[in-house]
């Protein structure tokens, strides 16, 4: 029968797709681990400097990843810190107060922002830096502050969307409980709705952190450099892990440097993978460990 043959082909095709997809990725990751794991260790991050000395900023690390890691950490924390209040408040407005028209228009703008290629956001950040250089202070140049703001633009939609979705997903009973007892809308938001949707919002924040940590295009245009030491001030240059990987791939001078590139890649991959998986797990918890009701046959 025709359908039997088609079905068999479809089955083979889907198995093939799965094997090809997982196989390719596993080969890549396997290669990365094989090449990179040997270089993991204290020396990769801190070079010749003692761990304590490096962390307490007593001595500069010249041949380790520590400055890059510190740079990435700083820039991520600052930009997410900037994006959270704006994003959460925007999400609250979209979920609780916006009219249908506002939801449509604002929603469209958020979606557009979310889809802008990161290099274009980097370009925007760079143009902002030029603007300030021309009209405010001649000393101003692309620096950590510019990166922080640009990255905040990058991840703002993530936070807004997840906040809005988590709030909108709350059941009607929860929404009305406090109101029926005399709470105002704002009190309801702060005392009931936000705490209830906390895990959803948290997963959005973790997603934003991951997105910031892995980004290379934005920071390339807004202040990251190959060698700058620990980030000293917001108005100075800084190093970052993803940029190090990019830079090393074309500028390595010996095999030790190349190996450090692999090591850096493993660290970055590990951090980002953990963050994204964490965000997903938290979002799953939100769906409830309750499971489907009996009588409903399909999950």
């Amino acid at each position, binding site marked *: *029968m025709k359908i039997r043959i088609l079905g068999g082909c479809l089955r083979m095709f889907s198995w093939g797709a799965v094997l090809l997809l997982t196989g390719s990725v596993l080969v890549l990751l396997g290669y990365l681990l094989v090449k990179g794991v040997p270089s993991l260790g204290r020396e990769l991050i801190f070079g010749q400097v003692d761990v304590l000395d490096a962390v307490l900023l007593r001595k500069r690390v010249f041949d380790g990843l520590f400055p890059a890691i510190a740079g990435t950490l700083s820039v991520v924390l600052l930009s997410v810190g900037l994006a959270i209040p704006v994003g959460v408040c925007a999400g609250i407005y979209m979920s609780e107060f916006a009219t249908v028209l506002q939801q449509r228009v604002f929603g469209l703008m958020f979606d557009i922002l979310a889809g802008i290629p990161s290099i274009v956001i980097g370009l925007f950040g760079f143009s902002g830096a030029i603007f300030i250089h021309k009209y405010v202070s001649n000393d101003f140049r692309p620096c950590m502050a510019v990166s922080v703001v640009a990255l905040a633009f990058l991840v703002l939609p993530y936070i807004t969307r997840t906040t809005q979705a988590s709030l909108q997903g709350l059941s009607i009973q929860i929404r009305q409980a406090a109101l029926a007892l005399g709470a105002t809308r704002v009190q309801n938001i702060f005392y009931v709705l936000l705490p209830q949707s906390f895990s959803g919002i948290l997963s959005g924040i973790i997603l934003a952190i991951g997105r910031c940590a892995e980004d290379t295009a934005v920071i390339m245009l807004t202040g990251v450099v190959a060698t700058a030491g620990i980030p000293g001030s917001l108005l100075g240059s800084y190093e970052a892990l993803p940029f190090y990987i990019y830079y090393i791939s074309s500028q390595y001078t010996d095999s030790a440097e190349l190996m450090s590139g692999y090591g850096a890649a493993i660290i970055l991959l590990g951090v980002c993978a953990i963050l994204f998986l964490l965000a997903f797990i938290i979002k799953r918890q939100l769906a409830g460990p309750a*499971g*489907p009701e*009996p009588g409903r046959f399909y999950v």
Partner: protein
Amino acid sequence: MYNPIKIRVENLTFSYHKTPIFENVSLDFEAQTITAITGPSGRGKSTFLSILNRLWESQPVARMQGKVWIYLDGQWIDIYSRTLSKPDLRRKVGMVFQTPNPLPMSIYKNMAFPLKLTGMADKALVEAKITRALEQAFLWDEVKDRLNDSALGLSGGQQQRLCIARALVSQPEILLLDEPTSSLDTGAASVIEDLLVSLKERCTLIVVSHYLEQVSRIADTALKLKAREFRQV
């Protein structure tokens, strides 16, 4: 009146998410009768039906022990053995749901769907089977002129009769109905009740219903599901 046994359930124990639903249930269902299953809601009546056509197996957290035998083509078949595939089983044991679920296609395509699954190509034969099933479901006169209209445009009662007709097109020997009239008004419901009684000569029917009057009107036997057991009433 003595009828041969059509379905035999032996020592059925079923649990869902570690909550026991049935414990050591053994039942026989006589051929060409209507057996009603009543009882408090949420206790497993729908689950029991799904055990008879193996539809519950889509849920991984359920566990079942025991046997279910159905007398088909002159022999007893253990429906959980490999003798019968699930799709084939479901052509012999049809099911109608509480809320009508016509597929998003025309009435004709809905009716032809089960036949398409078996690869039946003879158009004349397909049309004959469809016409006969629609007549058996008391729906033919109402839809014969609009077979190409969308099934979703029918009224609730008509949709439910369509679902019954669609289940009948494969000529099942057993028909399971889960609260078939609870989403319908009394007029539509009574049409379906008459329809079910008329189907007795072709099938063995098991109807889950929480309308006790309906049960007394149409059922030959009634079983009450209470505390994980069935009791005859």
